[in-house]
Each structure stands twice: as structure tokens, then as C-alpha cells.
């Protein structure tokens, strides 16, 4: 097949093939809050092919029109910065279809096959299909096997499968899930979504590191003192207590999102920006995380759980007082881990990673602290004169990058003071940043898996996390150990203080 002669890569955005997206769990929260608003926005922004279609799948019987009506309400309610344009919606909604059924019922997949066949001939989707599993993880295998049995894992065009985290709850279950999915789809067809990697700033880490010549020479143990990765949430479990008490912060955040962020910050330059080249380097980094003995785990990790507090004049319940949570729950709502990476670039440099619920503010950032100047030639005047250089990559909110360095304070004498050079995504570029789901859905349609997690990365993360889980589960914690609204347990501060470091207060 010849190439599209109308392409103008200098001016056009990425090429988007036609396809049908089949969403399992079409009546669920994720579809309403994230997927449909993202797809509508892509249509609004001319990013989808003309014959693009969506098939929603759920148990509730609905007509196509009733499904369209529901999705319209979802787009109206959850599109944060996109005005509903009725004409754009009408054209978009003409491509929305619905199939009701039980995931365990073979007849569902037969009906889906029939519907996809009709769509392929009426909307010319070229046989391309993207299956999105927005369902309980326990149902992933059933859905994939159902698709395989009905022959829907193959067609005239490409077939891809998106799965949401968690990818197993430990190494064995992650491998088992992968084995089941691999019975139907090849690894290259499986897109494990991690919405953190879809954020502009996380992608910008790659541009920042490998698009500029000035930072990479400093990006190693010789110049970097330590790295802090913080993902703080000010909210509690928000009605998800029953689910959350089975998971905990370590598995919910660090095993996937934060280790992926750490891998992006610390990976070696890839040979190209092709998906597998980038993912190979991320995977290598994750595999280089130093395994810890039980004693090292006790020294280098801190679990926490928030207790009740009064914040802003309101009484806030502790985790154990949340609905659906056991009164003696041992769940970690806070986790802090000191990782070490065993490679030539990073040997001996601590990567402090922390996450927690009910912390003082919602913020996700990476702080790279550089070594101090080797000699204090300006004398020691105390105060800020010795503040180290800091590079801060803010992922949310206010995505951006700041560099702190010392400058001479005006006036007589040689007094230094830290100043900040800031780059902010929102105000530095006039246009809106796409949401993570817009980015990731479009990537999957295009077939760019760079920002998706590969099975070897999932396994490498579990290899690093599973021993910590094991030690934590065998420990009887004195929870709660931090009040809601604080920066976590004192033990987390002590963990850094042992190496002469302190957590930033973002």
C-alpha cells in the first residue's frame, strides 16, 4: 500500500488511523469521567478519523440512542475545559453504539462481532479495533478470552487491548494475568495504561533530559546528591475505603505510577524515541533497583496511616473511621521508600519516594538535589548561602520545571541568596495541554506504546515492591501514626535524616 501523499509532516500533527474502540464497562465511572470526555475532546480537536466509532459494553440493556444520551450527559458534566458543541457532538454521537451482555456469556462476543462487522462496512474502520477493559481486574482474563473465542483478537486491521492497573497484586498474579492475556493477544498488542505517564510533564522529562545538552552531563552520581519523588493527596479514600484497605499506598501508587516516574527520571538515554527503545531503558532501570534484605527494608521504608484531625475548622476522620474500613486496618495510607539503583550512573544515590493520603496538599513533583559547590569560597554566613541547586519537576498541579540556584544579593558584601528560574506549562504555552487520557488514547490508536507499561516493567516493579509488602504484612503497625493534614509519620523524616537529608515541603 503506498503512503498517504497528502501528508505534510512539517505542519501536520500525528497521523491517526480509523478504528473502533470497544469499551468494556461503558456504564462505569472511568468511561463517564475520563474516557468519553477525552474521546469527545479528540473529536472536537480534529484528532479522530471521520469513521471513528465506539462500542460500549455493559450488562445494563440500553439502546444505542440511550447510550448516546448517557454519554452526552457524561461529557457535559465531566469535560472540564471543553465546551459542548452540538454539531460536533451530533457527528461524534453518530459513531457511538452499544451492546449489552454478560462478560462470561459467549453470546455477548457474538453480538459484538456482528456489531463490529456492521460498523466496519458502514463507517469504514478498516478492521482496526482497540478494546478497552474498564472493568474489574478480576474480569480482565474473562473478557480477553471471550474476545479470543469469538475471533475478535484478529481481523482485517490491527487489534489492541488496553488494560487499567492494577496489573496483579504481586509478582505471581501479575505473571498469571499476563499469561492469560497472552493466550489471546501478543505482548505488542497489550497496552497497560498508566495515566501518570500521559501527563505532559512526565513526557517533558524525556524532552528536558534528552533534548537539551546541558543537563545530561550533570545527571549522575557525581553531581546529583539525591532525588525526591512526592505524590501527595490532600483527600482521604473518598468512599473507596473497602477497596483501598486491601491495596494500600505502596501498591496503589509506588508500584506503578511512581516507579514509572522514577524510571523516566533515571533511565539511560534511549537509542531512539521509538516505543520499544524507550521502554527497554525504563525496564532496564527498574531491573537495576537494588533488592533489599528484610533489615534494609525496615531501615529504608516507612508505612503510615492517617488518624483523625481537625483541618480548616472541620473534623476529618482517620482512615479507620472511614466507611467500609475495619477498625484495626493495617493498611498503609502513606508509604515512603528509599530506593537505590545499582548501575554506574546512580550507584549510592538515594531515590526517596513517598506518597500518602490526607497530606497537607495535592502535589506531585520530582526534586533533584545537586551536590553543593565543592568549596565555600564566599565564606559561611549561614542562612541560604549554602542552599543546594535544586531542579524541581512539578507533575501536578501547575505542571512545570523550576531550577533553583544561588545568586549574589545586591549591595555591599558577598551574600548569596537562592533564586528560582521557572517554566510553567500552563502559561508558557498558550494552548491547553491535553489530558492524560487524551494523550494515551490517541497513542494507542496510533500504535505508539512509548507511554504504556510493558510486562517486563510490571514484573520488575513487583520484584522491587513485593519484598517490602511481605515485610510490612508481617509487621504489627502502631497505626495511626500521622494526623490527617500533616506531612506523614515522623519515621519518614528520620529515614532521610539518617543520611543528612530532609524532605522538601512542596
Amino acid at each position, binding site marked *: 500500500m503506498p503512503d498517504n501523499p497528502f501528508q505534510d509532516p512539517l*505542519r*501536520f*500533527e500525528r497521523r491517526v488511523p480509523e478504528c473502533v474502540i470497544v469499551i468494556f464497562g461503558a456504564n462505569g465511572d472511568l468511561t463517564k469521567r475520563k474516557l468519553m470526555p477525552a474521546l469527545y475532546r479528540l473529536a472536537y480537536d*480534529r484528532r479522530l*478519523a471521520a*469513521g471513528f466509532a465506539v462500542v460500549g459494553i455493559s450488562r445494563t440493556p440500553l439502546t444505542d440512542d440511550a447510550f448516546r444520551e448517557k454519554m452526552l450527559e457524561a461529557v457535559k458534566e465531566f469535560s472540564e475545559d471543553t465546551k459542548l458543541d452540538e454539531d460536533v457532538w451530533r457527528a461524534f454521537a453518530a459513531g457511538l453504539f452499544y451492546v449489552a451482555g454478560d462478560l462470561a456469556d459467549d453470546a455477548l462476543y457474538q453480538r459484538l462481532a456482528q456489531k463490529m462487522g456492521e460498523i466496519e462496512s458502514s463507517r469504514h474502520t478498516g478492521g482496526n479495533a482497540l478494546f478497552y477493559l474498564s472493568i474489574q481486574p478480576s474480569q480482565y482474563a474473562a473478557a480477553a478470552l471471550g474476545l479470543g473465542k469469538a475471533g475478535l483478537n484478529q481481523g482485517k486491521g490491527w487489534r489492541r487491548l488496553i488494560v487499567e492497573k492494577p496489573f496483579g497484586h504481586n509478582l505471581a498474579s501479575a505473571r498469571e494475568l499476563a499469561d492469560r492475556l497472552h493466550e489471546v493477544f501478543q505482548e505488542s498488542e497489550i497496552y497497560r495504561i498508566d495515566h501518570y505517564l500521559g501527563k505532559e510533564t512526565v513526557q517533558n522529562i524525556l524532552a528536558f533530559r534528552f533534548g537539551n545538552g546541558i543537563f545530561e552531563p550533570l545527571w549522575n552520581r557525581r553531581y546529583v546528591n539525591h532525588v525526591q519523588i512526592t505524590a501527595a493527596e490532600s483527600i482521604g479514600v473518598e468512599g473507596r475505603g473497602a477497596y483501598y484497605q486491601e491495596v494500600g499506598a505502596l501498591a496503589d501508587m509506588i508500584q506503578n505510577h511512581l516507579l514509572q516516574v522514577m524510571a523516566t527520571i533515571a533511565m539511560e538515554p534511549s537509542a531512539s524515541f521509538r516505543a520499544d527503545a524507550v521502554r527497554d531503558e525504563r525496564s532496564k532501570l527498574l531491573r537495576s533497583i537494588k533488592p533489599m534484605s528484610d533489615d534494609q527494608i525496615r531501615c529504608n521504608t516507612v508505612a503510615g496511616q492517617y488518624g483523625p484531625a481537625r483541618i480548616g475548622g472541620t473534623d476529618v476522620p482517620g482512615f479507620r473511621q472511614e466507611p467500609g474500613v475495619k477498625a484495626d486496618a493495617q493498611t498503609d495510607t502513606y508509604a515512603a521508600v528509599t530506593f537505590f539503583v545499582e548501575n554506574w550512573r546512580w550507584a549510592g544515590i538515594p531515590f526517596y519516594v513517598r506518597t500518602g493520603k490526607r497530606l497537607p496538599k495535592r502535589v506531585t513533583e520530582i526534586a533533584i538535589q545537586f551536590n553543593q559547590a565543592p568549596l565555600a569560597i564566599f565564606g559561611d554566613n549561614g542562612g541560604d548561602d549554602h542552599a543546594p541547586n535544586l531542579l524541581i519537576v512539578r507533575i501536578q498541579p501547575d505542571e512545570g520545571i523550576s531550577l533553583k540556584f544561588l545568586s549574589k544579593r*545586591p549591595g555591599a558584601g558577598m551574600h548569596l541568596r537562592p533564586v528560582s528560574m521557572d517554566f*510553567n506549562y500552563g502559561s508558557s504555552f498558550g494552548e491547553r495541554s491535553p489530558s492524560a487520557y487524551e494523550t494515551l488514547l490517541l497513542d494507542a490508536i496510533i500504535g505508539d506504546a512509548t507511554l504504556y507499561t510493558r510486562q517486563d516493567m510490571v514484573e520488575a516493579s513487583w520484584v522491587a515492591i513485593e519484598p517490602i509488602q511481605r515485610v510490612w504484612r508481617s509487621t504489627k503497625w502502631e497505626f495511626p501514626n500521622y494526623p490527617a493534614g500533616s506531612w506523614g509519620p515522623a519515621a519518614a523524616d528520620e529515614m532521610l535524616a539518617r543520611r543528612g537529608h530532609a524532605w522538601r515541603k512542596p
Partner: protein
Amino acid sequence: MSAVLSPDRILKELTELWVSMGREGHDESGAGVLRACSMTLVVLTEEADDIQRLGETLAALMPEHPARAIIIRLHPEGGRDLSGRVYAQCWMPFGQRRQICCEQIEITASDAALSDLPAVVLPLAAADLPTVLWCRAPRVLAMSEFRAIASMAGKVVLDSSALPDAKAALKRLSDAAGRGVLLGDLAWTRLTRWREMLSQVFENRERLAQLPAIGRVRVTFSGSYETAAWYVAAWLADTLQSAGVKASVAASAGEGPLRIELEGSGLRVALERQDGRLVVTVNEISQCTSLPPPSEYLVMREELGIVRTDPVFERTLASAARLAYATD
């Protein structure tokens, strides 16, 4: 009598401006301001032009394309006068304090002083960075001094839709491109989203396989869209050359400002703007997407992002000029 404008004096004023801004920034927030510059943007504009609107466009461009802006305001009357002033445009990425600023130099010149401009502007260009000339004064294009002014820049951006005779404009631009001038035409830039949507139709393999069957391309236009119509017709004819497609361009009072139709056996593709939307129809399927008329900021932003040869535009410009005259 002629007023003297010294580049050295302007550069000195610029230095003083930065010193005073640094002092103010320090007083306001305890921090200085950052000077940002990625190019020199020379804007040639009429004195009667809406300077406030131009200022807003430049302000919108600055965060992404921070530039030393040299705004030359022309007035047709008067002696050989040049005068100038310097100021800065700042934006506040964080909170309410000025942090990043770009410098602007405004020069007022009479037509009679046009030939003096290069000697003033050249020393003011930021070192080691590209210079782009944005010509917003169409009448200047016909003046003999324009060549000398254009030669200062690595790229010249103009809007052929503002010129009175579309065919003559295409011819003039094509001749300039032939002389090696790197050009950007905002009439072409405004077509990017249209072309992208059309291209998107042929990302579909079935549609792509039908391309050789296309036998007719028809572009209709109204109002100031004539050069755009020639451009898009030439682009389509070039792209479908192997299928031997002939493109026709016609003025139409009844339809929207621009309509593109491709027809062949079993395939009909039409693109048309309806209010702020672009409607793409492929046989029986219509796709409607948001496409408000692109602002000056958006088209300039695209052009400033391409300070290098644009082979598709250059080829299309040459073809458009040929096509427009062949139709006479």
C-alpha cells in the same frame, strides 16, 4: 529635515530598560526578571494599523517564541523621518510578578525613510539568532526598498489574501521564492487544518486505494479566499498528479468562503466551513469538528515555528502561480 535614529542609542536604552526592570522586579518580589529571546521579529506595519491588536498578538506569541520585536510603523507622508523608543513586554508564569520579559523596539518611519531602515535595523538584530520579517503593510511589497528590507531576514512572512490581485500576488511571491527568499504566506498557513483533515480521510486504507480513481477536484471560494483557493487547488493537483487530475477554481457567491470537493468513482469528499466548524463529508459520513477562523496569533505561531525551507509550500506556491495564470 531628517531626524537621526542611532542604533547605539537604542541599544543603550535597552540596557537601561533591563537595569530598571531588574530593579523594579527586585522591589516587587525580591527577584529579578529573566530576559528571553529566541529570534528577532521585525514587524513592518502601517501607522494606521491597530497597534493594540498587534500588541496583543505579539504578547500571545512571546511565551512560545520569545523575540526581540522591532516594530516599524510606516506613515506614507512626511520627510525622511525615523524615530524610535524601547519598551518591554513581560509575562507572569507564577503569581502576579513579572518574571520573563521580551524587549520591543518601536521605530516610526516615513516612506521616504524606507531606504534608511536596513542600516538601523541590522545592528539591532539579536546576535546568533534568526531574523523573521512579518510584513503587515501590503503596499510596501511593491516598493523597490522592500527587497533590501527583506534581505535582512532569514524568513519573510506576509499575507497574500490582503493583496488586491490574487494572481499577481502569487506571481510576485513565486518570483521571490525563485530568488531564494524564504517565504511564509498566512493564506497558506490558514489551510493547514483543512489540509490535515483531508489527509486524515486518506489515512483510511480503503480510501487511499481509491485515490487513483479521483477524476475531478473543484475549489470554490468567496471574498478574500482567492489565493487560498489557488493554493489548495495547486496542492491537490500536485499531490494527485499521477492520477492526471485537473483542478478547477471558481468564485462562488452562494457557498461558504471556501469549499473543496474531490470526486471519483465511488468516492466523494467535501470540506466546507460552516460557522466555526469544518464539516468533512466522505460519501455518506459527515464529520464535524471545531475550526474557528484561525487568529493572527495562531497562524503566526505556526510560521514562526518553521524557520527553514518548507518544501511542500514552495512546490505549491510555484504550482499555484502557474495554475492561476494558466486559467486566464
